[in-house]
């Protein structure tokens, strides 16, 4: 057998072993998601995705009468990969910001969660009740964030003296948080609700200072939306309609309460 044929055989065998069983030629919507950020997007070793974002994606696909296919990637690689046409849309707690709007388009915002800092139980930082003194106290401390998120942008802008520890994923950051490798972490309140339920979260508490998008929309954005390529106008319209349906029917509220124990859904005008 010639080298070329042998190579093709080998490659073919490997593809058969690895590729998931045939996605239908039509009616498939590929969704890029993080897979590493409970409770938004959790993926297990075989690629099954669960979480709030997965539910939102599946309800959109149901409305559009297509099958959802998830592609799991690190959060900060989602937008460039969408641009490179690796998938059709991004549903991964993607905040809508002006900077990102320069690169991709968005659907209507469908949810918005407040952000909180989390610190060790008994830390002096936990005593603050308003934002400005808290930000001042955080100067020079180390703060954990996920790379590429609006939260990392917020910290970089508002607490420039802090040492920022950037992680590729929320679970990685949480693992280092449990190991007390930094002083405080900044992310969605829903992430912390989920974290505090776990045994490692027992020695941590959330600082009761609520940070909402309106505090600093230039970095925190205007809520979460579905990321879509700018030239995909038709798909954007279809998704907007589907999202509106889902919000108006109360499905979004149910999903939000299921994962966050709180209603973070936004209204559709």
């Amino acid at each position, binding site marked *: 057998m010639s080298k070329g044929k042998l190579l093709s055989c080998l490659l073919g065998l490997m593809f058969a072993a690895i590729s998931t069983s045939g996605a239908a030629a039509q009616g498939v919507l590929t969704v890029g998601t993080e897979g590493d950020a409970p409770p938004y997007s959790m993926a297990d070793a075989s690629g099954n995705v669960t979480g709030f974002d997965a539910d939102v994606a599946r309800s959109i696909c149901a409305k559009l009468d297509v099958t959802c296919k998830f592609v799991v990637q690190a959060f900060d690689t989602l937008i460039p990969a969408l641009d490179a046409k690796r998938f059709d849309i991004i549903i991964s707690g993607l905040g809508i910001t002006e900077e990102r709007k320069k*690169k991709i388009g968005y659907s209507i915002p469908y949810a918005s969660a407040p952000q909180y800092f989390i610190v060790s139980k008994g830390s002096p930082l936990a005593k603050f009740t308003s934002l400005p003194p808290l930000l001042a106290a955080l100067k020079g401390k180390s703060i954990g964030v996920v790379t590429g998120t609006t939260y990392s942008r917020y910290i970089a802008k508002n607490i420039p003296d802090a040492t920022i520890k*950037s992680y590729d994923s929320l679970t990685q950051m949480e693992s280092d948080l449990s190991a*007390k490798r930094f002083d405080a972490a900044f992310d969605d309140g829903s992430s912390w609700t989920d974290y505090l339920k776990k045994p490692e979260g027992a020695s941590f508490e959330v600082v009761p200072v609520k940070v909402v998008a309106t505090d600093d929309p230039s970095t925190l954005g205007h809520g979460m939306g579905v990321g879509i390529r700018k030239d995909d106008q038709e798909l954007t319209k279809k998704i907007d309609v589907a999202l509106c349906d889902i919000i108006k029917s109360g499905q979004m509220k149910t999903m939000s309460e299921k994962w966050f124990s709180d209603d973070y859904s936004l209204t559709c005008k």
Partner: protein
Amino acid sequence: MDLDLIQQAIPLLLKGLTTTLAIGLVAIVVGFPLGLGFALARLSSNRTLAGIALLYSMVFRGTPLLVQIFIIYFGLGQVQFLRDQTALWWFFSDGFNCATLAITLNTAAYTSEILRGGLMGISAGEIEAARACGMSDWLCFRRIRFPLAFRLALPAYANEITVIVKESSLASTVTVLEITGLAKRLMSETFAVVEVFTLAGLLYLIVNFALLLVMRSWLEPRLSMHRNVARPSSWLRLRRRRA
């Protein structure tokens, strides 16, 4: 090509360069003596010592550096004993320390192989002559074996140094902000993937080039001053012969 982007990227990546060079420096300064120690252990007549050195070399050369970094950073971070000792934890809690430790241990293994090759490549006659002159083991090592071995091993060690610089990029997987880590962060903010990574690649290229240049044109001739060193390229000789 966005000139604004390049102007923004260069100072940031240069900051990462200092971290990269710091990792490389520690790895060389600590890794070389460590590697030398293991090389001597391998060549010693003490079987246990040689066995330990062999095991060390096989483990660290047989497993990927990424796994070694993960074991030291994530694995040791799980050990409660370490977390409770403030002094130890102060060291292991930092990604930079863990990654540098892993890279140092890794390069020590490869260095031990390189130096072992160098030590074994010395012709027996020179050592016999040294012994005949009544040199002690330590004097013989200091004046004869080590300089000769080092000269023999230099091309391979120069290569190893460039590998160290490249491997420092793996530190970015454990939050260290060296060149690759900063490039990723920059990419996630500006979304200019190709430009940012090309710049980062260029930076590594320049560093490695400079290192190789220093090694080849300064260090090697300095160590071989006793003979005319034509550039040891076999293809050059081949060309002349064929012509």
